[in-house]
């Protein structure tokens, strides 16, 4: 993994703001009064036990999930039922999933070109040039003509990252990007993510990769039972956890 770059000045521009956000799945109260500000260029790691609502939290930020109370403001756009607003937010946010979710019937290149062509209305040639640039960056351009089913898990996840980057998002969400990978493939994906972090991308990442968290994170959030329990700078978070629940969690995963 590349070394962490020098501590940088974090911008004061707010990219994502959550104010008193609540969400229920039926009767189940999955997010309870979440308040969070994400600044431009900030790298935030979210961890917590299974079912604590950490994936739901980031999925609310691009409206894959609907919240029922409170406000979510992304780049100045408040997320509500207004479809135009949702579209605008989604063009601005890239997302990488645990299960990659590449489109299996399209080649790697087509996976990357689809949204630039049909959402951003770019000419095909331009979209392909951009796609190849990002595929090059995740070091997989030589596989551009293959189908996702012919690639390894790590390669697929790198394609998924490139696919998101092709939309030139200003925020990237990662939902457990390495959890479905064989151990020897985790590093190649994390390396790409570290590079991205070093280039100043605003990132929110749900992960249990603590080494990665220490390398790139500006802040670590610990969630349990739908609430943010603890929030700290990574070294302090891992070395001196404050709450009992955090200590218990860290003792189980480390």
């Amino acid at each position: 993994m590349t070394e962490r770059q020098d501590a940088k000045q974090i911008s004061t521009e707010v990219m994502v703001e959550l104010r008193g956000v609540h969400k229920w799945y039926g009767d189940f109260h999955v997010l309870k009064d979440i308040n969070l500000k994400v600044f431009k260029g900030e790298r935030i790691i979210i961890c917590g036990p299974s079912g604590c609502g950490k994936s739901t939290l980031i999925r609310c930020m691009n409206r894959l999930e609907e919240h029922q109370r409170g406000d979510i403001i992304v780049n100045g756009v408040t997320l509500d039922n207004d479809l135009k607003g949702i579209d605008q937010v989604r063009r601005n946010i890239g997302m990488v999933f645990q299960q990659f979710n590449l489109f299996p019937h399209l080649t790697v290149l087509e996976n990357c070109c689809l949204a630039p062509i049909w959402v951003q209305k770019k000419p095909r040639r331009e979209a392909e040039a951009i796609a190849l640039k990002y595929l090059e960056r995740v070091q997989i351009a030589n596989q551009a003509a293959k189908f996702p089913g012919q690639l390894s898990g790590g390669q697929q996840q790198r394609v998924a990252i490139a696919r998101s980057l092709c939309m030139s998002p200003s925020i990237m969400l990662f939902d457990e990007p390495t959890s479905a990978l064989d151990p020897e493939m985790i590093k190649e994906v994390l390396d790409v993510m570290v590079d991205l972090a070093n280039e100043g991308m605003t990132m929110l990442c749900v992960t249990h990769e603590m080494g990665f968290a220490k390398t790139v994170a500006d802040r670590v959030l610990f969630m349990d039972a739908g609430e943010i329990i603890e929030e700290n700078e990574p070294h302090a978070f891992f070395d001196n956890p404050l709450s009992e629940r955090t200590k218990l969690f860290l003792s189980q995963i480390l």
Partner: protein
Amino acid sequence: MAVYAHSPHADLPPPKSTVGVVGWLKKNLFSTPVNSALTIVALTFLCWTIPRLIEWALINADWLGTTREDCSREGACWVFVAVRIKQFLFGFYPGSEYWRVVLSFSLVGFLVAWLLIEKTPRKGFVAFLTIFVYPVIAYILFYGGAFGLPVVETHRWGGLMLTLILATIGMFCALPIGIILALGRRSSMPIAKSVSIVFIEFWRGVPLITVLFMSSVMLPIFIPEEVNIDKLLRAIIGIIFFESAYMAEVVRGGLQAIPRGQYEAAEALGLSYWKTMLFIILPQALKLVIPGIVNTFNALFMDTTLVLIIGLFDFLAVMQSAFADPKWLGFSVEGYVFVALIYWIACFSMSRYSQYLERKLHTGH
């Protein structure tokens, strides 16, 4: 603890008894005593029936002639089919106008082949011709009334030509309508959803014979006399609605098999509902249900024979009416075998093409 010597082990060929003809026979035909017994029984049965069939249909058959006296009656009398072939193919279409039917079918055959065969250029333009221009040309050719072509009323259409018209129009319309209905049924919009469900459940709940009968007998009672909708058109609309309801459920099966993550990935990229469906979901869902779609197409092709009950003479009906000819009594076996063979060739071709398509669209997932 032990460390095993790690020298590269040469690749050995597989055991003799598992490869080649012997291996194949052993694996597929004689793997267990029961399978061996079944193989022997099946082979005996085939040896007993196939030669007799060939003898009847080919060796002892009579091919040439014009009357029943030309048949020696030992084997099949294909003279019966040969003498009436024009009627089987064209029904009561006037003989001087046969070229219009042939031209029209050749045209669609050419267009469809262009679309189905790989690596032909300008598929988009040809698809446009097939969908929007060809139907107009076909209507003018079949029905006439323009460019000096005499009108041929639909009640004179018949035979294989009518069967193919019903089946082709049925397939071309049932698939897109079925897709729309399937999407409607899974829609979150309550009106689109209920309309689709009511439509699908209504048409699936009624036998096709009833649909055809209603369209032919009941409908004229309810609509004013001045509005005269052609009987063939009514039958076609009935078949399209009926089959599109089945098609909708086949397509819905495919839609349900697409993982949630595909929708989410498309949404996260900012694709709209229709673009998600068109580029991401439908290509995968339709590929999954190719066997079901072809199944429905085959069923539709067979179902067209039911138009007999409303007095349209399709391929099978024309054949059956020929059995009643006093000059040719007693040749129904030949007639049915010929009809069956034609239907089988059509359906088997569809089936083979669909298998080719499945292989071609397989992308290793």
